[in-house]
């Protein structure tokens, strides 16, 4: 599924989408950047509360095309700048991590009912 289609399906606020056509394979939910570094699969969007530059850096390293900030966390200027430099999409949602994950699961058709 393309990132753009996922954004639409999940109703996320697109704060920055450098490449809407990039393919998304799934999601990874974590607020521990070391954990993201170790386990986040290539092509997964990162669902996290960590609204800082380091999240962008980690996504670049593991090949995660987008960050979904939960709880509507604000995007600091430095983070926005880093993401635009690295080509990482920034999305916001009022959902928490659990519900954001469910939306992805549903959009990707992994047996998530209402």
């Amino acid at each position, binding site marked *: 599924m393309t990132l753009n289609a996922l954004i639409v399906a999940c109703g996320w606020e697109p704060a920055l989408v450098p490449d809407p056509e990039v393919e998304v394979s799934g999601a990874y939910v974590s607020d521990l950047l070391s954990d993201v570094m170790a386990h986040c699969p290539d092509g997964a969007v990162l669902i996290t509360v960590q609204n800082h530059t380091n999240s962008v850096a980690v996504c670049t390293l593991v090949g995660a095309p987008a960050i979904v900030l939960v709880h509507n966390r604000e995007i600091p200027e430095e983070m926005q700048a880093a993401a635009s430099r690295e080509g990482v999409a920034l999305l916001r949602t009022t959902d928490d991590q659990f519900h954001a994950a469910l939306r992805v699961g549903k959009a990707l058709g992994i*047996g998530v009912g209402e």
Partner: protein
Amino acid sequence: MTMSKVAEVLQAEVLVKGDGMSRRVGHVMASDLMSDVLLVDEEDMLLLTSLASDQVLRTAQIVGAVGVVVVNGKPLPSSMVNVANDLGMTLATSRLSKYDACVAVHTARHPL
């Protein structure tokens, strides 16, 4: 859905049964930030986390959580078992990722 059913769905290994096994899971929280967990005013919370530390259990006790499931098959420090026992907190580990665990719990609660 009870905590013991959740453990089954997550193919989890229950390390400490505590007081939560027969309790109903009301709300699911998937977070590694304890402050984040403390912000949520939900009862009967299940905490899915990739953080393996005593503080996860202490936080869970503060918010009256039903239980804690550490995801990614992370090995737990032995102190966690002791703290969980002290606090009567249900503690389990699952090999699933947090994302897969979220989807699995939800799917079990709301079958297609």
